[in-house]
């Protein structure tokens, strides 16, 4: 089936540094999402993105977070500067349309460790 890829699978950085998480969504999908999962807890919605713009974001999407998809390349989540509480697994998802809210295709996640 359709696959969402995420690069890298693991990332370890020092607190205060910048990190960019990359997502390669399904090729014909138009809507993109980021979710955050702290160990032992549920996945939580961060942000969704369409047509070059953030559509909705949660309270977890701090000012230090930003997303973009320049020229149809990777959909990225940038955190600058990072904090210890940003350590989590970040899942990217994409969907073909807005109506298929449940039909989001997820990537395998990027495990971010902030030291």
């Amino acid at each position, binding site marked *: 089936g359709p696959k969402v890829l995420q690069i890298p699978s693991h990332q370890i950085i020092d607190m205060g540094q910048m990190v960019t998480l990359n997502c390669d969504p399904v090729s014909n999908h138009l809507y993109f*999402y980021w*979710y955050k999962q702290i160990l032992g807890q549920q996945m939580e919605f961060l942000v*969704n993105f369409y047509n070059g713009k953030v559509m909705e974001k949660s309270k977890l999407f701090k000012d230090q977070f930003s997303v973009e998809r320049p020229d149809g390349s990777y959909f990225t989540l940038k955190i600058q500067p990072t904090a210890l509480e940003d350590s989590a697994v970040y899942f990217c998802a994409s969907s073909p349309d807005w109506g298929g*809210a*449940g*039909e*989001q295709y*997820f*990537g395998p996640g990027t495990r971010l460790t902030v030291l």
Partner: protein
Amino acid sequence: QQQVRQSPQSLTVWEGETAILNCSYEDSTFDYFPWYWQFPRESPALLIAIRPVSNKKEDGRFTIFFNKREKKLSLHITDSQPGDSATYFCAATQVVGQLTFGRGTRLQVYA
């Protein structure tokens, strides 16, 4: 406050038994409930979903039972197979595009 709760946290059944995974939610405006499953080192994938207009949705060995009044739903896996061993996430959405997830139930099916 958890909007979507799942129980049990982990479940073990023998091959051929029926596994029952429970989910409850707080917000009555949720109107779409997908279940995702995730195998180790793989992505969560959509398994089956239901809307509140129905109280039952069946797909092969997987059935969702939905009780809107009690804000509860359950996923029944009949004739469980070792290949069904995975973590199952109940999710809900009220705003198109935002999924609210439970913490998951880890299912182990022994042969």
